[in-house]
């Protein structure tokens, strides 16, 4: 009986994932209202429960267990991007227009800032070869920029792992810290959401952080964040690596 049931749920993984996520949200909104008294939004609670579940599994989070493999489809990049694009209908084009210059500047500053922090901390912790420094700096941008840069430059797998880990930490930190700090940062309008997306750049972190703060801001942050990884992949192995080489050589 148990085998039949789990077989059925695995076969209908996506549908089971709808049910699981529905239950997570139900429990989260209940906790947010009854236990936390509205202190933390229900969406934020749900995302934190999601992250806790991710720690139970391996590389694919909770989807490492066959029973929950449908979560990887529901939470994969295809449906995520599809839903993010759909949120654009709720965005005001005029708001995006006047935030454009600020968003573009934020993108460049965001990539360079993350890179510099990564390189500086790696130096402080005893890394001296330029390839490792650049790869770790790139990983701090996002966990995609890191391995792309590391592969291009021929970094060791140990450094590659650190660089990916740094990117994952940034995604999780953005998810958790954004709703907590949003009010103090003035992150309550489309204009600063565009800037926020460009500065942080981790698509998942920006999307989740804004969803937990105010879902209305999601399209604005997602618009700029989507360019960040590409810009990082462009700048890190080229211009930024040359600068690292010049400073160390």
């Amino acid at each position, binding site marked *: 009986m148990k085998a039949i049931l789990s077989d059925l749920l695995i076969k209908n993984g996506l549908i089971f994932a709808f049910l699981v996520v529905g239950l997570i949200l139900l429990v989260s909104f209940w906790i947010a209202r009854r236990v936390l008294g509205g202190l933390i939004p229900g969406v934020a609670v749900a995302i934190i429960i999601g992250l806790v579940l991710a*720690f139970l599994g391996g590389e694919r989070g909770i*989807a490492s267990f066959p029973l929950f493999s449908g979560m990887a489809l529901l*939470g994969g990049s295809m449906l995520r991007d599809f*839903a993010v694009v*759909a949120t654009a209908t709720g965005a005001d084009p005029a708001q995006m227009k006047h935030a454009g210059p*600020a968003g573009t500047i934020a993108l460049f500053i965001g990539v360079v800032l993350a890179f510099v922090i990564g390189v500086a901390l790696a130096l402080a912790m005893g890394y001296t070869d330029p390839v490792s420094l650049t790869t770790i700096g790139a990983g701090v941008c996002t966990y995609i920029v890191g391995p792309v840069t590391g592969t291009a430059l021929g970094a060791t797998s140990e450094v590659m792992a650190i660089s990916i*880990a740094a990117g994952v930490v940034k995604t999780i930190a953005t998810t958790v810290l954004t709703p907590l700090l949003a009010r103090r940062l*003035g992150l309550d309008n489309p204009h600063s959401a565009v800037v926020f997306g460009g500065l942080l750049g981790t698509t998942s972190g920006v999307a989740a952080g804004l969803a937990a703060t105010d879902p209305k801001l999601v399209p604005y942050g997602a618009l700029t964040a989507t360019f960040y990884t*590409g810009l990082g992949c462009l700048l890190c192995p080229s211009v930024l690596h040359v600068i690292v080489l010049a400073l160390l050589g």
Partner: protein
Amino acid sequence: MTIYGVATLAACFLLGKVVGTLLGAVIGIDGDVGGVGFAMLLLILVNGYLRRRGMMDGATAGGIRFWSAMYIPIIVAMASVQHATAALSGGWLALLAGIVATLAALALVPLLSRIGRPGEETAKES
């Protein structure tokens, strides 16, 4: 019909991805640069056009609105399939770098938000 809305969304999504991938190829990156961003801008244009011509009826708009509303459940599912254990496996350097970079970027949000923000004068005009 609902499916017209979903199909419009799909068309914008795919076109945006094509543009993003082509842009990636032009600058020598094997991947998608800003595909989602292009798709969003396209959807805003198409949505506005169809609305003005009266071709975006309730059911059609509902096809897009459904996916927009599914956004949060999808994000919750996404959180649960992150490679979270990797965050700890990279050691102190990864942990420190990720958190410091996040805080530094967040600290710049109020500063950069001042650029190009419509002041009181523009607010009066509109």
